[in-house]
């Protein structure tokens, strides 16, 4: 059910607060809050300037370029796009079943990607909030503070990330812009030397992954009451599961559950995604709002990503992660866990799962097999779906008789989480900001809620010296009443207010 804070009855009578951009997420995000005269929140929205131009960009290009080309969609999760596009291309070239070697090399690449992404998010982006508190001094609440006070944790984060990158380099051929997955298979197996290189450190990686899960459990349980409540939203969940209902990141059927854990559909063919899911357009956001078609837009929105996956699956196929999953589901007595901050816990269970899955694959002789490619007859439609670090990722392509892209549709993980992220910030606005004067720690609470989802806004541009953070309080006439600015150097200043015309100019373009 949609929150009452999505759209205020008389927005023109309310004061507007803008948090632009949200920090420590990938790309550009903006939050707008509308307050009444008593400072009560009447509307809260997360706006994301989604990277929609890419589908147009690739039209007319030959399909075989896709696995390499789509990596430029995102500098943070290029491997997820590489593999999703390759899976779609498998269908385009008429291949429904890869060779064992090809599938295992791709899986290894994918586990490396998820492992490094989850490590980056937890150790670099989320741990400052969790270790020091949401209201800790901004000068301290960052990776530098983590290194100073917890150098071993920081070092482990760096090396876990590095290990995942090495898995990617070995399986895709390059550190970035790799070409390992090709339509119908892979272009290289894993050599004995490469396998030995990864084996040398996997025991250490496993130990660190276990320590990371222990750390998040300790942090969560120390703040259990607050964390259970913070940004908690009862939602449906969508993810892949394998034929036995196990956690599955690379290949499986779609499972959707409602907020109580009842299955809405199960083992659904990913090729039917367009029938099962719809996308709603709202006039105030560039990003669409997907929902489960059978439930409609008001009740059908859902969560994807680590929390949805751990809630949805019946088991995890690796023993250490399964033990941790059982401890996790006990949080809500077997019901789906709905606390946004529990996503961090779920994310680290998945990190552990990936480490175990990598260890298993490294012992599998088929990883070094010689049958790499399967051939088939060209088809006109291909749909590749996998579980990217942030959630279910859909790549859908249609080609013409010359193999050129005629149509492309991508639903990225962050788009799938659009509504649930909005609902989370509304919960935070209602419970923690309502009636209070704006301060950086309060601002950060909104950001903590968003960061739990690790949104990735698919933009790898990073021009120097840009993207400060600004929070403005504007009255109903467009006059700027208050402004906080956080500069790229980390300083936070309360500023003189410019004139009202300036404020109207600024907000006239924000579309809300």
């Amino acid at each position: 059910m949609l929150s009452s804070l999505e759209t205020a009855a008389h927005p023109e009578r309310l004061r507007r607060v803008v948090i632009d951009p949200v920090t420590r997420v990938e790309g550009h995000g903006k939050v707008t809050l509308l307050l009444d005269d008593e400072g009560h929140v009447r509307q809260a929205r997360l706006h994301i300037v989604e990277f929609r131009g890419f589908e147009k960009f690739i039209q007319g290009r030959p399909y075989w370029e896709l696995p390499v080309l789509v990596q430029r969609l995102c500098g943070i999760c290029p491997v997820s796009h590489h593999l999703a596009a390759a899976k779609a291309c498998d269908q385009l070239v008429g291949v429904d079943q890869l060779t064992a070697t090809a599938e295992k090399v791709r899986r290894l690449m994918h586990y490396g990607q998820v492992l490094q992404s989850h490590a980056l998010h937890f150790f670099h982006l989320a741990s400052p909030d969790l270790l020091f508190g949401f209201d800790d001094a901004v000068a301290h609440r960052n990776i530098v503070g983590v290194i100073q006070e917890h150098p071993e944790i920081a070092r482990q984060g760096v090396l876990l990330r590095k290990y995942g990158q090495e898995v990617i380099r070995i399986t895709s051929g390059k550190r970035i812009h790799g070409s390992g997955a090709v339509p119908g298979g892979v272009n290289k197996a894993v050599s004995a030397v490469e396998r030995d290189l990864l084996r040398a450190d996997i025991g250490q990686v496993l130990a660190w992954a276990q320590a990371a899960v222990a750390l998040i459990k300790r942090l969560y349980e120390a703040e259990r009451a607050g964390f259970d409540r913070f940004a908690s939203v009862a939602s449906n969940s969508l993810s892949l599961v394998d034929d036995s209902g196990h956690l599955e990141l690379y290949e499986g059927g779609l499972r959707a559950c409602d907020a109580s854990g009842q299955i809405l559909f199960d083992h659904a063919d990913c090729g039917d995604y367009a029938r099962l899911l719809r996308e709603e357009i709202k006039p105030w956001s560039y990003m669409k709002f997907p929902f489960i078609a059978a439930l409609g837009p008001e009740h059908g929105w859902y969560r994807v990503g680590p929390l949805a996956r751990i809630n949805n699956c019946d088991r995890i196929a690796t023993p250490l992660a399964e033990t941790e999953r059982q401890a996790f589901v006990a949080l809500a007595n077997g019901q789906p866990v709905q606390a946004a901050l529990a996503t961090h816990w779920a994310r680290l269970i998945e990190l552990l799962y990936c480490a175990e899955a990598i260890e298993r694959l490294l012992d599998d002789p088929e990883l070094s097999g010689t049958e790499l490619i399967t051939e088939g007859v060209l088809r006109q439609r291909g749909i590749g779906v996998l579980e990217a670090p942030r959630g279910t990722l859909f790549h859908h392509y249609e080609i013409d008789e010359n193999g050129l892209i005629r149509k492309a549709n991508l639903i990225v993980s962050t788009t799938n989480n659009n509504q649930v992220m909005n609902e989370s910030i509304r919960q935070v606005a209602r419970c923690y900001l309502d009636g209070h004067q704006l301060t950086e720690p309060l601002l950060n609470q909104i950001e903590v809620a968003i960061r739990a989802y690790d949104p990735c806004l698919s933009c790898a541009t990073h021009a120097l010296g840009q993207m400060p953070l600004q929070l403005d309080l504007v009255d109903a006439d467009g006059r700027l009443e208050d402004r906080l600015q956080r500069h790229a150097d980390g300083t936070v200043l309360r500023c003189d207010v410019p004139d009202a015309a300036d404020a109207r100019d600024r907000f006239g373009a924000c579309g809300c």
Partner: protein
Amino acid sequence: MRCFDPGHVHAVPVAPILVLGYGNPSRGDDALGPLLIDRLQQLQVVGRLAGVELLTDFQPQIEHLLDLLGRERVIFVDAAPGLSAPYRLLPVETTQSQTQPEPQPEPQSSSALQVQDEAQIQPELQVLGWTSHRLTPGALAHLFRSLYGEPPRLELLAIGAEAFELGAALSARAEQNLRVASNWLLKVL
């Protein structure tokens, strides 16, 4: 040999100089860093630039700390909007202030009430990137010092850029700047 050892990729000692160019090749002038690396790689093919390792990535990241280990000198290469000269070589320690060569208008802060006393902001934080998964070269320098000790000599080669549209080619000005910057870099390497 371990994954975590520097130089394991080639099983040889780490090259004393690293040039790391970063950016998205599909976003107009953001490709300047990777394109400069492409040019240098072509020269390595014909036997030049011995002792120099060339890397490219979308953006500086925390694992690049390990690429700094064992180096004598590291040059980051990035596109820099607002640069009046074709390029500038900047010491990384002061990256944040010097990578805005055309100073931006001060925010309305001349008589600003400071929410947080600037004196309380640790100097090293002034090189941190705050806004995404990426790190600045200055942040890498600081993190390196915290974890591994004194970093190598670190510099940022900022090349003038102006357009970052998806699918766009390099702007004419960026193309020219790339040529000038590449020629200069070849002389000093």
